[in-house]
Each structure stands twice: as C-alpha cells, then as structure tokens.
C-alpha cells in the first residue's frame, strides 16, 4: 500500500500542477541492463593482462609492526608487485571536505595501508599483485610480519577509561576548554546547548532518564568493494570502480598517492549498494600502486569477510537521555550524552547524531554532549543518515516512556513539542517549508494507527529527522541530431537516480521520457560533482539537470526565433516545440527534432552544462508506526505491520521514493532486531559473514506501507527534498517501542535479539 498526500498548490517554481512526467512512474532507463545481467559492476570488468591484487591483513586488533619481510613472496613465480605502507607518501594531518563528511587525509591513507601500527583486526599491512588468485594467496602467506602485540580496546566506554590502551599517542581530546596534556582515545568532545538546563528541569513535573546502547552495524551492501586500476608508465591512471562518487575516488587516490587529479580518470561501474559505506577508498589506491609497480592493470575484489573486517561499519554507542516535561506534555528540558565508537581513527558520526538528536522538538533548555572515541575496530564509514538512527533510538525510546508516564498518546506528545516553520532548530538554523506536522497527522489518521492488537502484540511509534544536503554538482544536457537528448551527470546511480534525472530533463524539454537517455560519466567527461550521499542527488544534481535543460530551452527559443524570423520574446516553448505566440504571423511550430536538424544554421550543436553549488535542501521528517508480536517463550520478535510516513517534498519518481523508504525501514529493522558486530575477547569479529551477521531476509518482513507527504521545497524546481536517509532514523526506536508494548518491558540495548528479550521477560 502506498499513499500520496498532497497539498493543493505546490510552491515549487516549475510545478504548475500540470506536470506530465515528474510524479509518474516510468520504467527506469538502466532497468533492462539490470534485469538481464548486462549491467557491469565493480568486479565485472576484465582487462587484457590483468593481475589479481590481494591484501594481507592484520590478525591482531592492536600491534606495532616491527618488520615486514616480502622477499620470499617476491621470489614466488607469478608475483608481479608487492606494496606496503612504505610505498606511500607521508601525508599532512589535514581535514579534507568531500561530500557528506570531512576526512583526515593522513588517517585515510593510514587506514588504506598501515605504517607503524595495525589498529584493528583486518587492517591492511601489505598487498600483492600476481598472475592468479592462487599465486596471490600463496604470496600473502609468504610475507613475514613481526608484530609487537599491544593491548586492545573495543567497547566505547572501555576506550574512554583513563587506563585504556591508547591507539594514537598524538591524539589529544579536542573541544575541551583546556588543551589536554595526555593522549587519549577521546578524539573530540562536542556540545550543543540552549537555555538553562537546571531551570528547565526545575520547571518539569516529570523527569525521565535512561541509558541506552547500540551495537556496531554494517551497511551490508551486497556487492563487495571492487575495482580495476591501471597506471601507465607516463603516470596516466585509469580506475574502474564501484563507489558512491567517481570524483571522490579520484580525489582520494590523487591525495594518497600524491599524483595530479587530472592524471586519474575514474569510470564509475554500476554500484551494488553503498548506503554511505562506499563514500571512501579502500582498494583503489592499492590497486594503482600495484599497477605502477607491475606495469599491468590490477583487479582487486574484497571477500565478504574483508568487507566486514575492513570496511566501515557504523558506530557502537552508549547514550544517556534525560527529559523533563510539564504534566501537559510540554518538554522543558533535555539532557543528552552520546558516546560513539569511531573505530581506529577519529570521525564517528557523533556530531551529526548530536545535531539530529532533538531536531524534531522545540525545547527551550537542552544540552547535547557527544564524544568521538577511537577503538581497535574498523574505522567507521558513513551509514545512511550517519549517527541519526542511534541518537533517535535513545531520544525516541525516552519519549515513548515519557508518554507512558504522562498517560499521553505518543503522537500527541510529539505534536505538542513539534518544530514548525519558523522554529529555530536545535542545531541552529530556522526551519522553513517543513512538513513535519502533516507527517505526524498522516500517521495519526492512518488506519494502521487505530487497528486492534492481539495478545503479545505491541505498537510503537517513532519520529526521525535528517538534514538532507545539496552541494557542488554538474550536469550536462546534449541534444542529438534527431532531437533526442542525453543527460550526463557525475553521480553514481544507486537507487534509480538516473530515472529522476531523465524525468526532470524530459519535463523541461517537453520530450517523452524514452527520448531522454541519462548516463553517469567518468571524471574526464563531466565537471565535478560531490559524491552520491546525504540524500543530495535528486535535489542538487536534479537542480543542475533542470537548469541545463532550461538553458537549452532558452537556446532553442532563440534558434526558433531565428528560423521563424521573429523576436525571441514571441517564442514560447510548449510541450517540446517552439511556438510563435503571435498567431498573426502564421508560423508553424518547430519541434525539438526540427530545431536539432537545423542546428547548423542556428549556431551549431545544441548542448549545455551547468555547474552549481546547490543550497536549500529541505530537511526531511519521518514518522513510523510498527506492530510486533513477541513469542514470550523464545523472545522472537515478528514484525506484523509497518507504516512509514515521510515528507518527501515532491516525489519525482514515486516508486523509487517508496523504495527508499521501504529499504531504509528494512535496514532499521535489521539494526533493531539482530544485526551487530560480535567481537571475541581477542578483538576479532566473530560473525564476519552474512550467515551470522543476520541482515533481514524476505521472510522476516511484512509489506512496508508508505505515505508520501508532499510539502514542496521551493528551492528545488519541482519541490523535491532528499528522501533516502530519513527512513532509517525512526525504525530502531519504533521497533523497540513496539516490543515495549508487547512485553511490558523497556529494552534499552540493541539489538533486541531473542536471548535478550527472553532474559528481560524472565527478569519479571
């Protein structure tokens, strides 16, 4: 089931209520390739003379690398290159802004290949390129590494302890008033404050406080990281890889290897899922370095085990949430503390988690303090609305308990404290054009919300927020000689964005959708774009596409005026044709095909490129309701029904918007119920495979109903807001709140695995 709730009039500049393509559900342009097996992903390219590259990874979670002896491996026939950290330049300790999050280049390089220390089980220490997979495996086994094994730390609070093993002896806690003198695993303390916390709690009739924790979870994309890279003797590089941004790959490879960006041409393969996890590099710089040494193209593909052990999960966390409210439900104060595991290098999403934690609420007095903590685990990577699901789990669980304490309906409590247009957001800016109230109402009035429940069943509600971003984007539109169009962008299409790009261009040009072919171009063929992430592509790249198409329409009007011998202001562009508005002139309409055929007479080829830095991405709000049944004897949770409402601005292709919502819910349900990194006492991940990591399978889930609330974003030509990230924010708490309803006990620790639930029931 899906519903679209629409406001009568859109405030979007190009939505006149008569859109022909935007808002419809055409078949995606890349669809046939993907249902026939033709689409080429990261591991699907083969080049002549290609070598196989493999990585030697640390068996220890924390060890000093005393020496690496590669001589025996080098002597093995078929081994063509071996690299270690010594093959990479030393990089400065500097932040580099790339898309959704900043990266420290020195840390990035050290994560790609360790130098002095291995900081987690799975950390790359060396890589080989050989003529076959078997030879590469044997070569890895011949590399001799001498380690000085060091004490390790995995849990976030253990890493914060004074006597914890220190990962980086030059890491001093940032964000403190006085610069510390002792190195610490706490990379940073961040704080957001408003009002007077003590006064706020003093005003409260009810105060609720609890502690929560969540486990590290992985994005779980089905396609492992993969690339083919080639560096020629003149230093010119080709990279074919699966990532969320070919320009991100180019930038990071250029920085890590200290070569010119223009010398690297990155061709985006189809990407088999990312969810934020492919917003960084792991293999590409290694493959290029191996290719440089061997003189041959090198293909590298991670195993699933490597994906879990060595690519970014998101943070495990420990949180406390304290809420104060008047008897009528008005929140007077909130105090939130977040401790996030960053993995081996600083950079957990605790900052975003802090900014989103209270973003749905208008609270006069609050404090949010976050800690970014390094641990001997893989460096975290972005995961869909990074950090927000975690802090929402704490805050939304606490809100549920507060509603119970106050005897209030959980949606009514949220409505009472909801942010509106004009509210100053907890993280700073003032909200405009948000559809949060409409989204709450959509769930309150949904039949699901009032449907009866049976024994051992419970219903949970939770809300969620994500900023959505814009950013630097380029798009080009070129018209072929027959009047059909190509849309060229620089953003990998993870979930159907090519369809939305083509639709927006077709709408502006007045062409049928099948006459517009979108492609995702390599880094040498289109201008720079930030990566696909932050729910930015349909908004920001879509803005560039629309403007490029509009520029073409202006040019077509000029060309038509020339051919019709009228002035430009007498030409309109209506449904794909130039129309002379002065009927008395008796000019025949000129279609795009007519104009394309005569482009030689009017100035040459028809095409345009727009580069912009899109601002004004509309923030997104989601409200979810989930029904569960708990088997009281086994602790097993069944998701009976799930409905997710979200303000999407304008659904360009509603099917793919629904798909984003459904996918986000499924990932959130997995995070809530079963997914977790399990480490043994030796700091080794015990469940580095799909068998025991346990993402949801088809039989674990019901249909996921969606309600698309359309409160237009006037900054986007068609009113679009980002949609991909919001839907993973509420489910963790929605599921936990439903379990609370079913068993009458509050579960504060994720995942809500059967043994934990049975133990909670038994605890009485």
């Amino acid at each position, binding site marked *: 089931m899906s519903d679209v709730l629409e406001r009568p009039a859109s405030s979007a500049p190009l939505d006149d209520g008569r859109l022909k393509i935007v808002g419809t559900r055409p078949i995606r342009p890349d669809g046939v390739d993907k249902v026939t097996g033709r689409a080429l992903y990261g591991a699907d390219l083969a080049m002549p003379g290609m070598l196989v590259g493999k990585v030697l990874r640390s068996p220890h979670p924390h060890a000093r690398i005393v020496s690496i002896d590669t001589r025996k491996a080098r002597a093995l026939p078929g081994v063509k290159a071996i690299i270690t950290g010594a093959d990479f330049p030393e990089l400065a300790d500097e932040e580099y802004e790339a898309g959704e999050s900043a990266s420290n280049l020195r840390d990035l390089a050290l994560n790609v290949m360790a130098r002095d220390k291995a900081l987690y089980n799975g950390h790359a220490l060396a890589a080989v390129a050989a003529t076959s997979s078997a*030879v590469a495996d044997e070569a890895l086994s011949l590399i001799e590494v001498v380690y000085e094994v060091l004490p390790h730390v995995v849990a976030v609070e253990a890493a914060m302890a004074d006597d914890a093993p220190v990962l980086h002896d030059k890491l001093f806690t940032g964000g403190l008033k006085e610069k510390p003198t002792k190195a610490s695993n706490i990379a940073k303390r961040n704080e957001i404050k408003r009002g007077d916390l003590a006064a706020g709690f003093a005003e409260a009739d009810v105060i609720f406080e609890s502690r929560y924790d969540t486990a590290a979870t992985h994005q779980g994309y089905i396609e492992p990281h993969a690339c083919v890279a080639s560096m020629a003797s003149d230093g010119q590089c080709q990279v074919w890889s699966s990532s969320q941004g070919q320009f991100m790959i180019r930038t990071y490879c250029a920085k890590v290897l200290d070569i010119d960006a223009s010398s690297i041409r990155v061709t985006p393969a189809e990407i088999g899922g990312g969810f934020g996890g492919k917003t960084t590099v792991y293999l590409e710089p290694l493959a290029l370095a191996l290719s440089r040494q061997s003189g041959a193209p090198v293909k590298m593909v991670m195993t699933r085990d490597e994906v879990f052990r060595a690519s970014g999960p998101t943070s495990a966390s420990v949180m406390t949430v304290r809420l104060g409210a008047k008897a009528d439900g008005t929140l007077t104060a909130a105090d939130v503390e977040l401790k996030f595991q960053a993995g081996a290098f600083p950079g957990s999403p605790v900052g975003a988690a802090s900014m989103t934690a209270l973003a749905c609420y208008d609270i006069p007095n609050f404090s949010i303090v976050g800690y970014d903590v390094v641990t001997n685990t893989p460096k975290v990577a972005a995961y869909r609305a990074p950090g927000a699901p975690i802090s929402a789990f704490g805050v939304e669980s606490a809100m549920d308990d507060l509603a119970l304490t106050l005897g209030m309906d959980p949606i009514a409590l949220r409505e009472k404290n909801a942010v509106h247009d004009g509210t100053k957001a907890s993280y700073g800016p003032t909200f405009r054009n948000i559809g949060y109230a409409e989204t709450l109402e959509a769930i309150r009035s949904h039949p699901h919300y009032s449907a009866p429940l049976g024994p051992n069943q419970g219903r949970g509600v939770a809300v969620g927020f994500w900023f959505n971003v814009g950013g630097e984007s380029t798009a080009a539109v070129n018209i072929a000689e027959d009047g059909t169009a190509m849309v060229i962008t620089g953003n990998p299409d993870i979930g159907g964005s090519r369809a939305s790009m083509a639709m927006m261009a077709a709408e502006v040009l007045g062409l049928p959708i099948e006459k517009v072919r979108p492609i995702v171009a390599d880094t040498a063929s289109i201008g720079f774009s930030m990566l696909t992430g932050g729910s930015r592509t349909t908004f920001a790249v879509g803005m560039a596409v629309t403007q490029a198409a509009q520029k073409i329409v202006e040019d077509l009007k000029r060309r038509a005026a020339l051919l019709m011998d009228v002035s430009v202001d007498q030409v309109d562009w209506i449904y794909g044709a130039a129309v002379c508005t002065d009927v008395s002139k008796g000019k025949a309409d000129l279609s795009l095909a007519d104009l394309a055929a005569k482009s030689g007479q009017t100035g040459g080829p028809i095409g345009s490129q727009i580069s912009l830095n899109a601002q004004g991405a509309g923030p997104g709000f989601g409200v979810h309701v989930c029904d569960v049944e708990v088997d009281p004897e086994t602790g097993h949770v069944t998701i009976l029904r799930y409905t997710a409402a979200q303000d999407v601005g304008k659904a360009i292709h509603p099917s793919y918007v629904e798909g984003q919502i459904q996918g986000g819910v499924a990932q959130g349900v997995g995070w809530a119920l079963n997914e977790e990194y399990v480490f043994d006492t030796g700091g080794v991940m015990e469940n580095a495979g799909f068998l025991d990591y346990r993402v949801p399978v088809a039989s674990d889930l019901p249909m996921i109903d969606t309600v698309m609330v359309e409160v237009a974003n006037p900054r986007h030509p068609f009113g679009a807001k980002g949609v991909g990230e919001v839907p993973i924010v509420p489910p963790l708490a929605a599921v936990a709140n439903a379990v609370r309803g079913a068993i009458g006990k509050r579960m504060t620790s994720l995942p809500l695995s059967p043994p934990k639930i049975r133990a909670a029931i038994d605890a009485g």
Partner: protein
Amino acid sequence: MAQLDFIAPVSPEQAAAALLAGGAGARPLSGGTDLLVQLRSGRLPPGLIVDLKRIPEAIGIRQEAGGFVIGAATPGIALGEHAALTAAWPGVIEAANLIGSTQVQGRATMAGNLCNASPAADSVPALVAARATCLIVGPAGRRTAPVESIAVAPGRTSLAPGEFVLEIHLPARSARSADAYLRSIPRTEMDIAVVGVGVNLTLDADGVITDARVALGAVGPTVIVADAAAEALIGSKLDDAALARLDTAARAAATPISDKRGTADYRTKIAGVLARRAATIAYARAEKTA
C-alpha cells in the same frame, strides 16, 4: 603450491579407495554446502575431493523393508518432494528442509549434515529421534551404525580413514507414530540452529504414549539423546504434567555453551520450550495416522 584434486568415482568401493589413498586431506563431496565454504575460507586445506554424486546408490530415495533408504548425495529438496517419505517421517523431512535456503536445499544432504559433525546440524536430532542408521562404506567393506555414533565432537566423526556414509536408513513406521522437529533461530530463515529438538512418538489406541525418543541439538558438543525426557512422556497422553516433566528433563539434559549465537541460559530454556512444542506437534500427527 597446494593443489586441489577432484575425482568423481562411479562405485562406492572406488570412492573408498580414493578416500583412503587421499589421506587426511581427502573429503567426500555430496552437496558441498559446508565443504566448499570450509575450503574457501581456508579452514580446510586443499586436498582430494571425492564427488559421490556419480555413484548410483548415493542418489535417490528407495523404499525397503517398510523403511526408507536415502542415498548420501540426495539433496534436501528431493526429500520434501517424496510424498511417502514425508508422510512417514515428517519431522525428519522438516528438519532436513530447514537447512539453509532454497538454493542450499538444491544441494545440501542429510549425510553431509551428519558427517560435517556440527553440533547444530538440523537434520541430526530428527534422525537420532527417528532411530535412523547409516550404511558406511570403507576399505574394510560395509557396516551399519546408528546416526548418533557418527559425530564424536564438533567437526570430528567416528569414521575410519577411507570410510564414508553411503546411505541413511529410516526404519519402518509403526502405527500411530509420528515425529516433529523444531529449531530456534533469530531470523525466520538462513540461520544456524541456536537450539534444535527432534521428538518421535508412538501412541496406543487410547492415545497413551508407548514409545518416545527426544534428541537435542546445539546444546552440547554432539546431539544429545535425552532419555529422561522421553521417559517423561511414556505412559502419558501428553497432558500438561507430562509436558512440564518433559520441559524439565530437556533442560536438565542440555549442556550448552554461550557463543555468538546464544547464551547457555537461553539455550537451556529454549531446549525445554521446543521439546514441549515439538512433542505437541508429533503427538497431533501421531493421532492422525492410522
């Protein structure tokens, strides 16, 4: 460099000879759903793979002496397609069909499940409860052994060098008998059993249980035959008191460890829960049989 070798003999004796000659690194291949994973992960060094699927006796289901003979390389999906086998031994079939996905069912075999010697093997508690035996072929000829004698420790079997299981034999079904298997997993599919329980019952004309066998999986290093749990049922009509005794006896028999799949405490409790539920299903099935 270590090299994997592969042969596909067409007789059991050829297979036994090859396995013997291949030494410690030789492995029989039936479905391969465990073996290939172990080879790939490096847990098993490459050696000799002896494919059993070209041996005629190793494939298919035959009815013999009122019971069933199941070739070692018969995939799970073929078991479920066999109407008479499913009617006679529903618990064994549901156990076998719980192993892995549809894709895994297209390959995985009960003999492989047995000889992989995982404490959590789904089909083994059901086979043990069914008093199944297996026909073992080796360099010294053929012998028959009860299925519970095969696994001696996690990943280790009692099979001698060169020996392999060629067939699994399910005995003839007596009247008013039925079995059931249940397992507990965190998801609905695709997981390894956290606990598995097989129950096999025979009733008299009045519905009194005259024979019972209860086998517990994933709560000890090998499958546990819970005799006290079976005794708790015999003489009862599976009333609440009998079910309570069964629960207690099953929990008492369980000797689980805590690991990534579940805590010892949880496993112990669930052994009791599943024993009750499986017994209830088996009882209802037995009542319906002639």
